């Protein structure tokens, strides 16, 4: 009796999947592979950074805020907003205390 095509495909796939996973797991534990992988990623990051720098220079030349400037401004605004919210809450608490003593 021949196995059904579906079962045959499933068995072959499972075997392939397990072998590939085992091979990949061994590869990921190889320092040479990891070093090479991160080196190629660093090359990509360097290209990205060079592009970012060129954009920053262009924006600065046009006296426009860069991404870094925007991030910092947003961060500071966020902190200020938090501070104002905290102060609001404290004022509300104090007002409630004042109202309570007035009664």
């Amino acid at each position, binding site marked *: 009796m021949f196995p059904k095509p579906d079962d045959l495909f499933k068995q072959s796939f499972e075997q392939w999947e397990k072998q590939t996973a085992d091979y990949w797991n061994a590869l990921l534990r190889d320092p040479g592979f990891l070093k090479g992988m991160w080196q190629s990623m660093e090359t990509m990051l360097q290209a990205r950074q060079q592009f970012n720098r060129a954009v920053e220079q262009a924006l600065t030349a046009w006296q426009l805020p860069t991404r870094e400037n925007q991030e910092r401004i*947003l961060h500071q605004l966020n902190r200020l907003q938090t501070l104002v919210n905290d102060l609001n809450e404290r004022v509300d608490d104090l007002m409630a205390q004042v109202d309570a003593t007035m009664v």
Partner: protein
Amino acid sequence: MQQWFELWQLGLAGAWAGYARWWQAMSLYDTGRRQVGQTPARQVWHKDRVRLIRYLPGRPEPRAVPVLCVPSLINRYYVLDLQPGRSLVSYLLSRGLDVYLLDWGTPTIQDRHLTLDDHLAGYLHQAVQATCADSGAEKLSLLGYCMGGMFAAVYTALFGEWVANLVNLAGPINYHDEGIFSLLTRAEWFDPDKLVDSYGNIPADLLGWAFQMLRPTSHLARALQFYERMDDQDYVHRFAAMQTWIFDQVDFPGETFRRYIRDFYQANLLVSGRMTIGGRPVSLSSVTCPLLTIASRQDETAPCDSVTVLNDLVSSTDKEILMLKGPHVGMVAGRTASGQLWPHLADWLIPRSGAEAGIMG
């Protein structure tokens, strides 16, 4: 001619049946996708992108000590409330516990400069205070999952007076282990500065790629399994909810990522006792509250030895290790979770959640 026509009819009927089957499965998938995070809750506190939610108690008078769940910073909170019938939160409520959950939200470029200190001594500390204020308790049970487990342990070391019980659910503590992430991030080849300086916040896609590297063929295997079982409504719903969560990752705030990799993965400062948060040293030996550590031997994300080492480092006398089966997410939200993790966790928490445990000592 007649034979050709019959063959064509047969082919068309087969194609139509296949299309109808697929359409029905997609409809089920869509229903499953919308089932995530459905347990009724209300927001009790928020700050910036972070919010604290309280699940509506399952009983009129829940137990005195509330449970604050702290999920990972880079995954969505609803893994603990995945879908009806597969929700850790819902189970804890049904056992009479008062459950709160910290949703870290979605970082944007304005969060790029937020540090680990901001998350631990800022957001988490304020969420703990808000939980206690809302529930009326003086202390709470802190339940951290994945990176949240490490956060909970560090928090308890710093602010132990607020924590009645600590549960570390698959949270890595020792980062110098045989796990794949420990290897990937070694200082010999990985420089987090380059990544942070280039991207700002670390994109969710890049993090997803790193997780995918653990087993690159897993998506293909899952797709095949889905094709085989797409007539099974319950399976499709479960599959859809899990896939929704897996692909719903968020960015990692840049400065937090830099410090997380440098101090935890590369220098392993937490285990060596040299970690500081907000200028205060973090000594795990200062943890004295009851501790439950939960790990799995099949967990590739947080290897079990890396998790269970916490029990050796704390000074608690009431401490326990629960070893489970299953992968990192499966042990919390998988099919076996309702029979293994959930009842054991509730059985451990309930005797430690009485009124006397919630008073500051």
